[in-house]
Structure formats: structure tokens, C-alpha cells
């Protein structure tokens, strides 16, 4: 039997990167794996994608997926500014960016907030494990209050909820997930990559070496037992025939399904589970996040969505051709233009 290929005739293995050097069982590797699947399933062209990251365990991962895409492992907490520049230089590129809870929640908090404010269109993944891995086990700013770690004792600071910070900053696509929930991560990635605005995915991704005790809310055992998805998520491609009657099919009543129409004509279909969360309602999104933090409820799924405002490049009113591909004749005004300026400055 010939190997399965996608619409570009590529095998899934052709979307892989170099072998991972992270600890076996690291949550980050499962996210890389889902990124490979996403790009393969959607038939993305790798040369039209860039991968950018900051510094830390999470930020090493862009080397481990999409080997055919340009990548940039930049500086600690500074991924958002590099993405901003690269996507202004070439608006034809899609961008998958990977950060961690230290990279975004501490050293990179300013750039995180401001890239959202500018609405740079990219997938912003935070691989959130509540701990600094490469420097061997310090608390991060997302660690739970009262949590105990071997070398650093008890954490007395309240956590920063990065999904909540994103909503407050004006992010138009905010999701939380669990790296152990492959199906949900996959659905959210497929939606995020279609979003023409900053799409933030705060994915709890356990650190098997420093923060995987059952008592930690960032651990595998905790996630497996306590994850409460807000909905079941399905992505309907733009060419999907959207039939009204279909909604009532199956176990779902009318009103139990929310179809969020995306910019490119695709839909995020959310099937109601135990609660009534509507991600199109900003107040509800903030309430869900605040309640989750207060009561330590591990709610996952699409938390907030709105039709994105203009991207930074649109605000800048740039020409259609990517700036990086303009020819010299587009970049240097003629001599007459210089002479005109000089004439105006003469006595």
C-alpha cells in the first residue's frame, strides 16, 4: 500500500523537523507533533511558513517540526518583536511562534501585550508548565500559589493567567488546552492558523522532570483527571456545505451548537458540554477564566473569539507586494524626486 499523502502529495514525515532533544515524555513534543499533523492535514506549503521562538525548553521546539520552513530561535521574551518585523517584511508568510510561561509571563510580558495590541496575525503558542526547566526548576509566574517545589520551597505569589491577560489586551482568539488532549489541540491549531489576527493558545504542557507531581495543576496526572473541556470542537473547512438541518443531528439539540464563522469562511463548530460558554461573549470569557483561576478549574477550549480588527500591515496601508520582494526601482525614488527636495531647501 502506498503511503498516505496530503493534497500537495506530501507524506506526513516530510513535515517533520530534527529529532527532539527534550526529556522523553515532555508535553512540548506532543504539541510539536500536533503542529506537524496540522500542517500535513491542511496541506500547508512549508516555505510560506516561518517558525519563531524565544528562549527556553519550549523555544527549542521549532527545530523539531516543519523542517522545510525558515525558523528563528531568537531571544528570551522577544519573540513577538521578531515576528512583528518578519511579518511586516513579508505579509505572505504565515507564522507559528512558540513561547513558554517564563518567556511570555515574565521576561516577555511587555512584548506579549504589545504584539496583541498591534494585532500581528500569527499563532502564538505558550507551552505552559509553570516551571523553568533549562535552569532547573524555578517557579514561573504561572505557578500556583502555595505550590511546593523541591529546591525552591513554597510559592507565595499568585499566578498570572496568560489567557486572561490576552483577553484583556484585546486578543481576538484566545484558547486554553492541555498537551495531553491531542484532539482538542489539533482542532484549536487548525482554527488558529486560519485566524487573521493574533491567535493565542495557552497550552498546559507538563514538565516531566521538574513539575509533574500529582499535586501540581501543571502535571499530567492532574490534567488527565481534571481537564474540563468547555465544548467539543470541530473545524469545518470553507468548502463545507453548511446545512441548517445538520445541526440537530445526533445528540445535540438546537442551541447546543455554536458555529463560529471565521474570516476565511470556515467554521469552528462548538458542541455544548456541561456549561453554556459562548466564546463570542467577552464578559463570559473573562468570567470563565477568573472562576477557573479562583476555583482551580482546568477549563479548556476556545475561550474567546471575535472578528479580528485590521492587522498591523493593514493599518500601515502597505503595498500588495511583500516589502522584502520589492525591486530596486520600487525602493529608490528617481533623481528628479531628490532634486525636488533639494530645490525646496535652497535659499
Amino acid at each position, binding site marked *: 500500500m502506498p503511503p498516505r499523502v496530503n493534497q500537495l502529495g506530501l507524506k506526513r514525515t516530510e513535515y517533520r523537523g*530534527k529529532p527532539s532533544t527534550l526529556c522523553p515524555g515532555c508535553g512540548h513534543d506532543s504539541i510539536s507533533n500536533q503542529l506537524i499533523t496540522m500542517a500535513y492535514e491542511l496541506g500547508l*506549503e*512549508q*516555505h*510560506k511558513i*516561518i517558525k*519563531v521562538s524565544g528562549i527556553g525548553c519550549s523555544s527549542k521546539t*521549532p*527545530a523539531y517540526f516543519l*523542517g*522545510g*520552513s*525558515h*525558523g*528563528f*530561535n*531568537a*531571544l528570551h521574551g*522577544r519573540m*513577538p*518583536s*521578531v*515576528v*512583528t*518585523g*518578519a*511579518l*511586516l*517584511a*513579508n505579509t505572505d*508568510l504565515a507564522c507559528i511562534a512558540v513561547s513558554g510561561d517564563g518567556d511570555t509571563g515574565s521576561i516577555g510580558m*511587555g*512584548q506579549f*501585550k*504589545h504584539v496583541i495590541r*498591534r494585532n500581528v496575525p500569527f499563532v502564538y503558542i505558550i507551552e505552559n508548565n509553570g516551571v523553568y526547566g533549562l535552569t532547573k526548576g524555578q517557579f514561573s509566574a504561572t505557578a500556583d500559589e502555595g505550590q511546593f517545589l523541591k529546591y525552591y520551597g513554597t510559592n507565595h505569589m499568585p499566578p498570572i493567567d496568560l489567557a486572561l491577560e490576552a483577553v484583556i489586551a484585546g486578543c481576538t482568539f484566545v484558547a486554553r488546552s492541555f498537551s495531553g488532549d491531542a484532539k482538542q489541540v489539533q482542532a484549536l491549531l487548525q482554527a488558529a492558523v486560519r485566524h487573521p489576527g493574533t491567535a493565542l493558545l495557552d497550552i498546559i504542557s507538563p514538565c516531566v522532570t521538574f513539575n509533574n507531581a500529582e499535586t501540581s495543576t501543571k502535571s499530567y496526572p492532574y490534567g488527565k483527571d481534571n481537564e474540563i473541556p468547555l465544548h467539543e470542537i470541530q473545524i469545518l473547512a470553507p468548502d463545507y456545505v453548511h446545512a441548517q438541518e445538520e445541526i440537530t443531528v445526533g445528540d445535540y439539540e438546537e442551541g447546543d451548537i455554536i458555529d463560529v464563522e471565521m474570516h476565511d469562511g470556515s467554521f469552528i463548530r462548538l458542541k455544548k458540554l456541561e456549561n453554556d460558554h459562548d466564546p463570542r461573549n467577552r464578559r463570559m470569557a473573562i468570567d470563565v477564566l477568573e472562576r477557573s483561576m479562583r476555583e482551580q478549574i482546568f477549563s479548556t477550549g476556545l475561550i474567546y473569539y471575535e472578528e479580528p480588527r485590521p492587522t*498591523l*500591515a493593514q493599518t*500601515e*496601508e*502597505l*503595498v*500588495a507586494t*511583500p*516589502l*522584502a*520582494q*520589492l525591486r*530596486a526601482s520600487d*525602493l*529608490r*525614488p528617481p*533623481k528628479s524626486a*531628490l*532634486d525636488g*527636495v*533639494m530645490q525646496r*531647501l*535652497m*535659499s
Partner: protein
Amino acid sequence: MAIQAEIQSKLDKRAPIINDFAFSVATKNGSGSQTSNNVLVKSLFRMGIPVNGKNLFPSNIKGLPTWYTIRASKDGYTARKEITEVVVAYNNETAPEDVLNLPPGGVCITTDKIARIIRQRDDISYYVIPVTKLMRQATVPSAFRKLVENMTYVGAVAQLFDIPLGLIYQVLLDNFKGREKPARMNHDVIKLAYDWTAENILKSDPFRFEHMDGTQGKIMMTGNDAGALGAVFGGVNVVAWYPITPSTSFVDGIIGFRNLRQNDAGENTIAIVQAEDELAAAGIITGAGWAGARALTSTSGPGISLMAEFAGLAYFAEIPTVFWNITRMGPSTGLPTRTSQGDLLFTHFLGHGDSRQICLLPGNLQEAFEFGWRSFDIAEALQSPVFVISDLDLGMNNWLSEPFDYPDQAMDRGKRLDEHTLRSFIDEHGKWGRYMDVDGDGIPYRTVPGTAHPFAAYFARGTGHDEMATYSERSDDWIENMRRLRLKMETARALLPQPIIDDRREADIGIISFGTNDDAIREARDWLENEGIPTNYLRVLALPLAASVSDFIDAHKSIFVIENNFDGQLTQLIRLEHPENISHVRPLALGDGLPMTPSWIYQNLIEQEG
């Protein structure tokens, strides 16, 4: 009155001094004096008189003292003079000292209120303008009254020293972009003072302006505007910045000239992003440079400090970017509105580890324009950050210049492969690796994202890497990479703009300098020559230093390195790079926050030479 008459008779005997004296205008910051001073400078420029205006202003929005010096020089000397013959003393707080600073025979123009509080000197001329009374006569809406009050000294100066009113009106119209109402309002006040002075003041000084043809075909502009215009002709695509004095007006310049690069639909080929801080500004241009755009930031010392981490990354990952450092006085917040050349070493060595940055050192408007466009060619040719080190004096003050030459070289995008040239490269060399040095000049070939070739992608990183851009902690990979980066710096030495050398004289003394000291050095050398002390002169335009610097050092018995910083930073760099036979190299370093003067150079050089 008896004293006045006595002075009058003494002064009348003096020969007229025409187009060769300097003013100092002392006002309070935020009082609208910027427009008045600008009108005076531009009017002299239009009279054909070589002129330079320097703003010595405080870090303040309103209230602190500010001085503006205007030097007219028929011989074309436009460096700052330490002593000005005329003071406009319009600030009661500084007036007593401003008057004391005048030379004998000087002129004080002041207000009636201030005249009461300053001690009279019997060796200068006083002209007292009744500002309150004149303003009462003026038909100016009360909201503007304070702002146009300073126009009274423009009127007095015009009457006393012969600047035609009609010409002043034209300059006002230009200043207000052709709008007649504000031009008229200001002109009315100027005319009131002009007429009042004619009727009430007996001129007792020898100073006068006269039309001449010293500025025919020349332009007047600030260095920040010149650099910005250069960047626009250099194809800048992405500008990211954070406001900081004295570099803010650089980006204002790009915003002003951006329309030269719009298409017919008014769409932009330059994106301008005001970032959240200088860190992000440096990150944005690094991302843009990596992705193939021409990207620039403009900042000053404190911003350069924050940009150090991206400068190191861009150096090591070999990403073309352009940084303008409009230097102000440090360390720390320092003197934010005073000029300096104190960032030379910091900028050249910016980044931790063994990093060394390419620097361009403009000394006048033409070089600011040229380096504005050429910096991008150099950055892409060398795949490296390029720092253009200007300063507050060049950046923010109005300078006189010949018009700029259109770029004489086609745009150089460097060794950048597209899908076709990448294919040929692989055919020729068997493979392509981002950091392979196939030409032996230390400069590899790069691809940019979006290149449709299966082997075009690479992983840029600040971590150790081999020639395939793969992560490596191997010592041999590390050393090989550093060796290549050093080789690239050697390639840079010859590729960068070469020093400007004037060594035509039989002279024992050689002067080495850089940047805006040029005007003062030119004048000081003429003075020295008149005293029978000929000098030769080399002005450095780029770092790393060119080979000709050491030849120049060897060819002279005595070398003075003139620089406007405290520690003699260029001297230190010369000692580092040319350690042999340099006991005759001495710094003449000042660093007092003000533009260099010919008299300081002249006196200190003679003193040191003995």
C-alpha cells in the same frame, strides 16, 4: 547719558564688521523662541550669508533656560564660537550672566523689565526694547500673545543689523507652510519692534549684515532630516523606534519623506512602528532584516543600551539591520539634550562575548544623507548590523550644505539567493549551508523566508551553530565560526567608506578626528597655519579602522586625536588596533556637552605641542 555718548564716540571709530559675528539668544524653553530663531537663521541664509544655528536647550518642556547661537561667517566658518558678540537677553534668570559673558564692544538686546535688574557695563552697547508696551499695541489674540512676544527681538535685530523685512515675511510664510494668517500675525509684531527701534534707538555698534552670494545653490537642513532622506532613497522598508531625544526627529523625517515612496494608490513601501521600547524596536528590525526587508531604527545612548542584546544576536546570526545612534551625553540619562561623541566604544563593541559592530561616522549633512542610503547596502553586503553614529549637534541643528548627490551606485542586496540562484549554488558546491564561506571573504550566502525551494530553509539562532546553521556546541565549530566572523570584519575594513585625508602639507603634526568636530578643526587648522604651524588631517568615516590610519600615524611626529568625549575613545581604539609605535598619539578630548570650538582646539593643541 554722558556715558552712552562717550561709548558712542568710541564705537563710531570702529570699522564696520559685516557678516562676521555671532549671536546668542537667551530665552526660556517653551516660550516660542524656536520659531524666532529659525526665522533669523533662515533669513540670513537667504541673504546669502553662510550661517549656522545651534540650539543649546534644556531637558524640559517649559521654563528652563535655553540658548540659541547663530554664527554668520562670510568666510564660511560655521563652527560654534565660545564668545558671541551679540546677546539677546530675554531670560531674566540668565541675563546677568549673559551680559557678563559679552566681550568688550559687544551688544546686549534686552527688554525694559530685564534691563532694570542687570548691572550695566560701560564697554558694551545696550538696546532696550519695551516689550510689554509693544505687545499692547499689537493686534494679537491673547492666546498667542506670549508665543509671539519673542518676535520683538527679531524686529529689533532686523532693524539694528539690516535684515530686510520682506525677506523675513517670506521665511515666515515658509515656516507656516504658506498659511498667511500666522505669518501675518508674527510679522506685525516684528514690524512694530522694527519701527520702534528705528525711531528710538541710536545704534552704537559696528555689526551689520549685507547681502552676499555665499549660500547660492546651497541647502539648509538638520542632520536627522538628511539621514532620514538618505534612508528613504536607500530603500528602507521597516522603521521601528521608540521616542528619545535627540533621535526622535530622525523618524519624523522619514514620516515626512515617506510620500516619496508611495505608489499611485498612496500605499506605502515603508512601515513605521512606534514600539513599546527600544528592545522591541531592535527586535522588529531584526525580524524584518531576517525576512529580507531593509530595516532601520533610530535611537540614542539609553536606547542603544537596551538594544545591546539584539545587536549581539544580529551580529552572530548575521542579519542585516541599520541602527542610527544620535549620540547625546552619557553615562546614564546624562545630559539628554547635549551633544557628545561618547558612545564610540560602546557602540563598536556592542553585545556580550567577542562582538564587534560596523560603524559609520558622518560629519556633515552630505555624509548623513549618503550613509542614510549606503548603510543598507553595507548591511546587506556584509550581512551584519550597521551603526551610524551621528550626534545631537548634527542631528538637531540646522546646517548649511551643498545639495546631495543622487546615489552613484545601484542597490546592493548582497549575497542573497532566490530559488534559481540557490539551485545553481547547489549545482556548483554540492550543497548550500547558511554559513558556508565559499568565497573566502567571510561572507556567506543567505536565503530569506518565502523562497520556494525545498532546501532554502535554515534555522537562525543566537546559539552555537555550524556552517549548516545546525545547533552545535563543538569547540571546532565555534572557533571556525568566530574565525570567519573576524575575516568578515577584515573584508569590511576595505569595503567601508575610507578616511578623508588631507596630507598635502609638510607637517609634523597630524590631526585625527571623526564626526561633527570637522568644522571646528577646519577653522583651527587655518588659524594654526597662519601662525606658521601647518597640520595634516585625517577624518575617520567608519569602524573597524581603515589601514590608512596607521600609515597616517607613522607619517607624522605628533598626532592629536580630537574628540568630543571625556575619555578619548578613538585614541583608545587606535591604541588597541595599532599598538606599535604610537607613543606620539595623544587625545585632545573635551566632552563638555557642547559642540567643539576652534578656539579650544587651537589653544589646547598649542599648549600640548609646547
